[in-house]
């Protein structure tokens, strides 16, 4: 039981490049979330999903896109990377708001 896995662990992008952050969970959770955490700050919700085919915006969705074609996978797409997107990105999953969220190990992204 791997829990929540994220790839890659680290990535450096040039301004204007695009990339996809991968997130997979094997706990059969319907709810999945993407957060970003800037240095010394809290977690900001980017997008979330309550099931396959359903996604919704969080607090800071601009510059990102998501899809949820399966229960297990919830990739986050960055288009036209900007320095303001330099951050650590965490994916999480849960049964619902009333249950704990399990976090992946995070992806550290630098845009230069």
């Amino acid at each position, binding site marked *: 039981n791997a829990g929540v896995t994220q790839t890659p662990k680290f990535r450096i992008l040039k301004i204007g490049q695009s990339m996809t952050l991968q997130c997979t969970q094997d706990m059969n959770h319907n*709810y999945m*979330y993407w*957060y970003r955490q800037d240095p010394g*700050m*809290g*977690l*900001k*919700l980017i997008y*979330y999903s*309550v099931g396959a085919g359903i996604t919704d915006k*969080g*607090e800071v969705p601009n510059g990102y896109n998501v899809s949820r074609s399966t229960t297990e996978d919830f990739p986050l797409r960055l288009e036209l990377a900007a320095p303001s997107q330099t951050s650590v990105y*965490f994916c999480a999953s849960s049964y*619902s*708001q*009333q*249950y*704990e*969220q*399990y*976090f*992946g*190990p*995070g992806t550290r992204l630098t845009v230069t």
Partner: protein
Amino acid sequence: QQPVQSPQAVILREGEDAVINCSSSKALYSVHWYRQKHGEAPVFLMILLKGGEQKGHEKISASFNEKKQQSSLYLTASQLSYSGTYFCGTGDFGNEKLTFGTGTRLTIIP
């Protein structure tokens, strides 16, 4: 709106007690508590639900005051392993997402 945590940071000696507060401007349905160590992902501590009982395990417990829209996390006889940043996450009824607080950095020294 983001819940406000207090204090922002606290330094304790091993064995001392700590209280971390989380206040929201919205009516709450659930409050989650997580601890994050430097360079790692947040780890779940406990959940409190509206109308539910105070939760706790070992030397960490929490309370939920629905009227005041507040939750408090109590760490008793703190250990070195308790060091880290503590976040509350609040959820309102019918909303499937959490809003995380500003964080409280706890440092335990020998």
